[in-house]
Every structure is written in structure tokens, then in C-alpha cells.
């Protein structure tokens, strides 16, 4: 069953406790208590090795199990791999492609434009096979002119098309900053509401494996001030597909942040059509002692740290905020009211990053519920070095998260 989610109007995009529509909440809560559904988590460790674990799904009735086991035991893992489980298993880039393909089938106005998206299939294989299926005009290979083709996407969106502009790396979209800020973000307002810009701008960003400073940028901090746009960050195949579909259906311009290192995550997702709410945060692991807010790749560092913390006797509540603009202060606020301690773990730079804004928002709204100052762990304010060891030092590692939680929970 498919529902259509209408995003908040651009001029009303405020970070106050924006309650999602009742029907949406009902849908999502029913999904969470979907019996038998287990999400498979692939934990990417900082030294590059992969750990296939099955994490427990978020359900209030399973709280007592979760305190002792941050990850499922061997028996659960065996059950999860059985063929009788509903849904199908795929990688994150395949989930993105599935979402994209379903939306392109559903609506003729949806088109993709970007560098190498057509015949090459996308630099991260997200659009593989789509050019053969939908034709050259719907999956458009652009020349290397970000400013021009982003502007082109925005102009096409003004007439009613629903383009998806792919930046080969988010960092390249800096060249299109004028178009994104002035035209994409502001046209709805400066035209007095005449035009909506239903564009999706997506691409991989974040720190990868020794890609160098210019290809390891986190643009969410630069874009967050632009009035009129929405930003979401996906972290699992489930929410990648859901957010992609919701972003395409939204009438607002949405920037979807993916991460270079998360494209090969494997997870089992439902067969039936679903959408994730663009403005809602995801409860990854309920807890009692401290709220850890994170997004994108840092979610996996946090979950790895959570394993260690559980062994040490702490009970962290992990929330993947997903919606970077506006923040889901409803979910976050409820969590703060429960735990009274907040740790923000992000990959953005320390100065002016998402964590800085989130700290300010929580302090403004929930200062009375905090027992300790908010701690924000972010990347160092340096260009990302090429050398692997140095690169590891610039981003937040699980050990730092464990230390921070221990300090906060004293």
C-alpha cells in the first residue's frame, strides 16, 4: 500500500516540533512492529573489514532483550538468513536504483541527469540499466558543467518536470552553489508561490578511503543555511529507497546525501512499496542512559561503540536523525526527556556543521531536560588528508564515542 507524503511548504520549513501527519505515524509504527522483520546491519569498521551482524529491530516490547544484547545471537542470525523471510535482500545502491526505477515507472515526468548516469550506468551504479529502459532523454548524460546542468534541472522543474540531478561527488555541487541557493531554494518564495521546484539533488559525499581533501567533502554544513530546501541523509538500504521515493514525490527541492562508503551495505527490505517520511528521525536502538544522535556513516561507528558500551553496562539510545533540515525535534525531544544526556556524533566539520545547529536547537528547546551539556563529536576542522592513518584521525572513531559516553554518564 502506497501513501503519498506531502512535505512541508518551503516557507514553513521551521525546525519546531513538526508532527508528521497522523496517518504517516500510524503507518510507520505499524511497520516497526511488523512481526518477524529483522534488519541486517553491516558494520563497516574503520580498518576496512566488514562485519555482518543482524541487529534487532526497534520495538518497545523487546526492550529487555536489547539491554543485554546490542546485536542478535547466533540463533537469530540463522533465522534471519532463512529463505522463508519476507522481502528481498539487496545492496544500498540497488535499493536507490529500485526506488528510482519505481518512481520513473510511476510518473513520466521523472528524469535523471548527471555525469555518466546514462550509458555508463552511474559512477556508483545507482542508475545502471535505466538508460536502456527509459531512453536517453529520461536518463541524461551531461557534460562536466555542474552549474549549467543543475540550473537546467531547476529550469525544467519550474515547468513541471521532476528531475533528479546527480552530482558525481557532492563536492562538485559546490560549482552549482549559486543555482542551488538562489534558484532552487529561493524561486518558490521570490515568485510569490507561482513556481514549485520539485527537484532532487543527490550524490555521494563524506570521507571515503583516501580520496583526498577535495573529494571528501561534507556539504550538508554548507547547504543547511539555504532557505527553502530540505535535506535528508540515508544510511541503510531501507531508508535509502524510502527517502529516495519520498524525495521524488515531494514538491519541495530535496537534497539527498548519500555516503561513498555505504553503497555496498546489504539489507533485507520489504517487497511491497513503502516510503520513509522526509522529516522523521529513525530510532535505531532504544535506551535509557544517553541519547546519541547521528546520521549517515557515523551511525555504524556509533553502533559499533554501542556494542562496547553495552558490555560495559551502559544503555545508549541511538537515533539516526535522517532529516538534516528540518530536524525532527519531536523524536529527539522525546528522547532527551527520557535520557537527559545528549551526544551528537557526526562527520561534518566542527565549525558550523550539522552538529553545531543541532546543539543550538536542542539547547533552545530542551534546556530544562538536560542534566549535562551537549557533547558534539565532529570531524576536525582540517582538509581531509590523503594518508590513511591521518584520515582516520580526522573523523570520529568508535573509541572516542565510548570515551565521550563514559564521561557524560558519570
Amino acid at each position: 500500500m502506497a501513501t503519498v507524503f506531502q512535505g512541508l511548504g518551503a516557507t514553513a520549513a521551521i525546525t519546531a516540533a513538526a508532527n508528521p501527519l497522523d496517518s504517516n505515524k500510524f503507518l510507520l509504527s505499524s511497520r516497526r512492529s511488523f512481526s518477524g522483520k529483522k534488519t541486517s546491519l553491516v558494520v563497516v569498521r574503520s580498518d576496512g573489514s566488514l562485519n555482518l551482524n543482524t541487529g534487532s529491530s526497534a520495538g518497545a516490547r523487546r526492550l529487555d532483550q536489547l539491554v543485554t544484547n546490542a546485536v542478535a545471537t547466533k540463533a537469530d542470525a540463522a533465522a534471519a538468513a532463512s529463505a522463508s523471510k519476507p522481502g528481498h535482500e539487496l545492496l544500498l545502491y540497488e535499493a536507490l536504483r529500485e526506488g528510482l526505477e519505481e518512481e520513473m515507472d510511476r510518473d513520466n515526468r521523472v528524469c535523471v541527469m548527471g555525469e555518466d548516469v546514462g550509458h555508463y550506468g552511474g559512477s556508483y551504479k545507482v542508475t545502471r540499466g535505466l538508460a536502456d529502459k527509459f531512453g536517453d532523454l529520461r536518463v541524461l548524460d551531461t557534460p562536466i558543467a555542474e552549474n549549467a546542468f543543475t540550473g537546467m534541472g531547476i529550469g525544467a522543474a519550474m515547468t513541471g518536470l521532476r528531475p533528479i540531478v546527480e552530482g558525481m561527488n557532492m563536492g562538485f555541487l559546490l560549482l552549482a552553489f549559486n543555482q542551488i541557493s538562489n534558484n532552487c531554494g529561493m524561486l518558490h518564495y521570490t515568485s510569490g508561490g507561482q513556481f514549485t521546484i520539485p527537484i532532487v539533488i543527490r550524490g555521494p559525499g563524506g570521507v571515503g578511503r583516501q580520496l583526498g581533501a577535495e573529494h571528501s567533502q561534507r556539504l550538508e554544513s554548507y547547504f543547511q543555511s539555504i532557505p527553502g530546501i530540505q535535506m535528508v541523509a540515508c544510511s541503510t538500504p531501507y531508508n535509502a529507497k524510502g527517502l529516495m521515493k519520498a524525495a521524488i514525490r515531494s514538491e519541495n527541492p530535496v537534497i539527498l546525501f548519500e555516503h561513498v562508503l555505504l553503497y555496498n551495505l546489504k539489507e533485507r527490505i520489504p517487497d511491497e512499496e513503502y516510503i520513509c517520511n522526509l522529516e522523521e528521525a529513525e530510532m535505531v536502538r532504544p535506551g535509557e542512559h544517553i541519547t546519541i544522535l547521528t546520521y549517515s556513516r557515523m551511525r555504524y561507528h556509533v553502533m559499533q561503540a554501542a556494542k562496547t558500551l553495552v558490555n560495559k553496562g551502559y544503555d545508549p539510545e541511538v537515533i539516526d536523525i535522517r532529516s538534516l533540515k528540518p530536524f525532527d525535534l519531536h523524536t529527539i525531544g522525546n528522547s532527551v526527556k527520557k535520557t537527559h544526556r545528549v551526544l551528537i556524533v557526526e562527520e561534518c566539520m566542527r565549525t558550523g556543521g550539522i552538529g553545531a545547529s543541532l546543539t543550538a536547537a536542542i539547547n533552545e528547546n530542551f534546556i530544562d531536560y538536560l542534566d549535562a551539556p551537549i557533547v558534539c563529536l565532529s570531524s576536525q576542522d582540517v582538509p581531509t588528508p590523503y594518508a590513511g592513518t591521518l584520515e582516520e584521525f580526522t573523523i570520529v572513531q568508535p573509541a572516542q564515542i565510548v570515551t565521550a559516553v563514559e564521561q557524560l554518564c558519570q
Partner: protein
Amino acid sequence: MALSHLSSTRSNRLLRPLAAAASSLCRPISTSTEPLVIETSIPFTPHKCEPPSRSVETNPQELLTFFRDMATMRRMEIAADSLYKAKLIRGFCHLYDGQEAVCVGMEASINKKDCIITAYRDHCTFLGRGGTLLEIFSELMGRQGGCSKGKGGSMHFYKKESGFYGGHGIVGAQVPLGCGLAFAQKYNKDENVTFALYGDGAANQGQLFEALNISALWDLPIILVCENNHCKDVNLFLLLDFLRLFFTLLLLWNRVLNGWLFGRWHGHC
């Protein structure tokens, strides 16, 4: 125009014979719809294409509507200038007086399904696309009745239903948007074109050349119009003005000096 008004005033017995005489002196303007073929004076310089024909078919009535529209636009721009100097229009106010023929001529050959997008010198283009003077002046003065509800200002006039896409403040940024409009027309298989207007300043912008490249690559139905009003060359004229001022002052000083040295003033005391 004043004469025709005079001749139409009612029951003014004193002026009636005067008015009758005046109307006979008034030169009549033809409103016939007989086709008239006009040859434009300056030849086109083509580059890798066939130049369009220099003969344009029109009729006196249409020419009269052109004149009326251009005259309205001129008066509107002059009024906007006065309002700006009276600080009733704030911020920026870029005027199109002198260039009215460009947008009027363009409008004459297209329909409302064709798209026009331009930069910030958009008052007359908006009027040509079907905007009203009330909408224009309301927007310029920041009122709700403006075309963008007072939220845009001089540089952000839009009219979606007539295919006018603005109205953009950043030099050159409207040209890639124009490519997007043309792309959408090609995508939807509309038999329409997009006009993307820019100025001599925007001709320096990299995004213009990117847009030209993209338009050629995908054969987009776009016509890029460069309106060279030499606004970019403001520095040259400013320099000439300063030179003129300097020499005027020099002459004045020369006269003062002569007057004092040779005592010509003594005769006047």
C-alpha cells in the same frame, strides 16, 4: 494625443470651433489591416546558419499596437525612475527604456506557450507577457498586489501562466535555467521554443558558455538573445564624464584667475 482629447471634450461651445479646426490639423493614423511589408535596415551577420529574411510582414494596426506598447513601457520606466529617486522603490531598479523594441518585437512573433526568461531588467518583458501596470508598480513598491506578492522586488517578476520565467538577480544564472525550460519543452514534445535573454555583462560568464555547449549538444529548442546595452562599459563613460567635469572646472578657474589678475572685476564693483 492632446489634440484628439481636445476634439472629444463635450459641450464646450467656446472651444468647439477651435477643436474642429484642431482635429482637421490632426494627422490621422491608419488602423487598417492591409498587409505591409517592411524591409529591415541592418543586414544580419550569420555564423554557420541561414540568416532570417529581412522582410517583415505587418499592418498599420499592428504597428500602432507596437507603438502604444512601447510608449507605455517608456512612460512606465520613467515613472519607475522617478519613484526610485523618491525612495519609494528601494534596493535595485534596472530600467529598460530604450530597449522596448526588443521585447515588443519578440512578443509579436511568439505565443504564450513559448517561454521567456531574462535577467533583472524585466519590467517591460513582464508587461509584454501580459502583466498589468498595477502588478508591476505594486511589486516595485513591495505591496501584496504585486506579481510576486511583494516578496521579490524589481528583479523577480514572474508570470507562470504566460510562460514568463523571470526575473533573476545573478548575472548569467538565468541562462542554464533557460536551457532547462527548453529541455522540458523537448521532453514533453511541445512545439514551442524558449527565449533566454542576457546582457553584454553576462556574455563573460562561464555558465553562458556551458549553456551554449549543452544547447548544441542536445539540440535544445532555445534561442539565446544578447541585449547589448553597453551597461558593462559604464566605466568608460564615467571616465569621460570625469574628464568633461575636469575641463569645465579648469576653464572656470582660468576665468576666475583672469578676472582677478587683470582686474576686470573692478569695473563691476
